[in-house]
């Protein structure tokens, strides 16, 4: 796992560089799901041959910098494309457009869409007796969307056991903490009541994440409730609401990059 941990650091550094270069927000949201993406892309997803690959969907698409960085470091997209992130006449938008880069499986940005598209893809694969799997990262704020619970209600009934949702539970949404905004907890029990196989893990512990991905679903759709820290890896960004929005200045960049080392 050491190499995956090193890769996660490289993804984080790339996210900081992209945020700095673009003067865009959502750096905290991107950093919180980096370890999940690193484990998925380096340990779990079957990507070869590409035509028969597993599908990964970043449903919380405002964390797009994490996906773009991962795709570049994995070699799925050319690293130079990152330079055009959020630029005038650029290459990559702040939220996902599947026409802009290989490996962006679905366009997303509005919350509560990618999860349900993923369920449809997974059901389609099962129906075609294809053993490809589908993974979708959703946010804790995103889990307030009604569409998530519509999909959750049908997925278990339809036996979509080739689908795994990962909740990036960083406990900070756009303007507060989920539990202060609505009756958020108990998360795990809610999903279990909807017929899902739910597992709670430390979303920054690579071994626990890998174990959760490999755990038997028992014929149910799986949800991994990954407890994460918004801004993870950069001490002054960690667990701070402001880093949902703040831009990375020259000074922040320098401090952040040395922090990740």
């Amino acid at each position, binding site marked *: 796992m050491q190499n995956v941990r090193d890769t996660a650091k490289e993804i984080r550094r790339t996210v900081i560089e992209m945020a700095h270069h673009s003067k865009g927000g959502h750096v905290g949201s991107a950093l919180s799901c980096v370890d999940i993406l690193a484990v998925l892309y380096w340990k779990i997803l079957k990507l070869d041959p590409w035509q028969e690959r597993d*599908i990964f969907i970043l449903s919380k698409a405002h964390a797009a910098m994490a996906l773009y960085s991962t795709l570049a470091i994995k070699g799925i997209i050319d690293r130079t494309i990152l330079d055009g992130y959020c630029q005038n006449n650029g290459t990559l938008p702040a939220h996902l457009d*599947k026409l802009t880069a290989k490996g962006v*499986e*679905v*366009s*997303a*940005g*509005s919350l*509560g*869409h990618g*999860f*349900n*598209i*993923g*369920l*449809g*893809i*997974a*059901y*389609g*694969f099962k*129906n*075609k007796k*294809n053993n490809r799997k589908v993974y979708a990262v959703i946010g804790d704020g995103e889990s307030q969307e*009604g*569409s998530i619970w*519509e*999909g959750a*209600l*049908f997925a278990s009934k*339809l036996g979509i056991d080739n689908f795994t949702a990962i909740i990036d539970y960083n406990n900070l949404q756009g303007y507060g903490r989920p539990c202060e905004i609505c009756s958020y907890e108990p998360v795990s029990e809610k999903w279990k009541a909807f017929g899902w196989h739910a597992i709670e893990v430390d979303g920054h512990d690579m071994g626990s994440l890998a174990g959760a991905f490999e755990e038997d679903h028992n014929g149910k759709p799986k949800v991994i409730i990954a407890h994460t820290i918004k801004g993870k890896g950069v001490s002054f960004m960690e667990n701070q609401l402001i880093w949902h929005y703040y831009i990375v200045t020259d000074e922040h960049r320098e401090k952040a990059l040395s922090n990740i080392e």
Partner: protein
Amino acid sequence: MRNAFIDTVTGAFKKRDDLFIVSGDGGLGVFDDFKETHPDRFLNLGVAEQNMASFSAGLSVAGFKVFMYNIIPFLLYRCYEQVRNDICYQELPVVLVGIGSGISYAPQGMTHYSVEDLGITQTLPNLTVLSPIDPVEARIAADYALCADKPVYVRLPKRGEPLIHTSTEFDITKPQVIENGNDVAIIFHGSIADEVIDAGVKLKQDGIRPLLLSVPMIQPLNIEALLDMVDDMKLVVVVEEHFENCGLGNIIKTIYASANPSWSLKTLGLPFSFIHEVKNTKGMREFSGISASDIVRTVKEFLK
């Protein structure tokens, strides 16, 4: 019309293994046999329209051509953003099959009417929109949708509409001459067809022979063909069971403003207000000024 469309689609399952039907808890009597014979190609995704639309997009990513069936407000309005982002933006070959166009569901109440859907579809690039007038156009619309590698929306009334076309094969992307005439053209689409045919009969009794033109494909609209077909008219009347301010009539008004043709234009549609009257479809058309006698009056007033 509904049965002509659905029978054509379900008939294609015999030859193709990439087709799928998703229903939002509708279709009693429509899919009863089909879901028994093709249990692995039909899903009732219940009263959960957001999930239904995104899920259908996902099925098409996995390689299926999906027909998503529901009453129009629950197909297009409730899940507008899913249709926009997940189907149209991503150019996925999902066919939105909408039932209850216009006020064909009267007197079910405003929640079940579809009198603004063409206003909404004008905000959705990549979406082809079909509004057939009879079972023949509905069948050809189904053939078109089966072959289209893009999002398609088909607005259908319900069932039992009369047969209007005498030919059975034509290019649905173009306006269709239902009856030849001169001086006056009546352009229409969808469920108002019987009023237009009735108006045509009444006008002929008074010595006026209108050109009756159906426009099955509203989006993209074949503007060139349409302008060419009405080129030598004195009056063009557009009639539809739809809000007047955002339907085909309004689209033609925009074209009229830039093309500056020699003919005059009148549009007949439902007034832009919520409907509180409790009337059947026929009664509602009369109340709203889009019945056969309103069409006749509009033409005669112009020719006076």
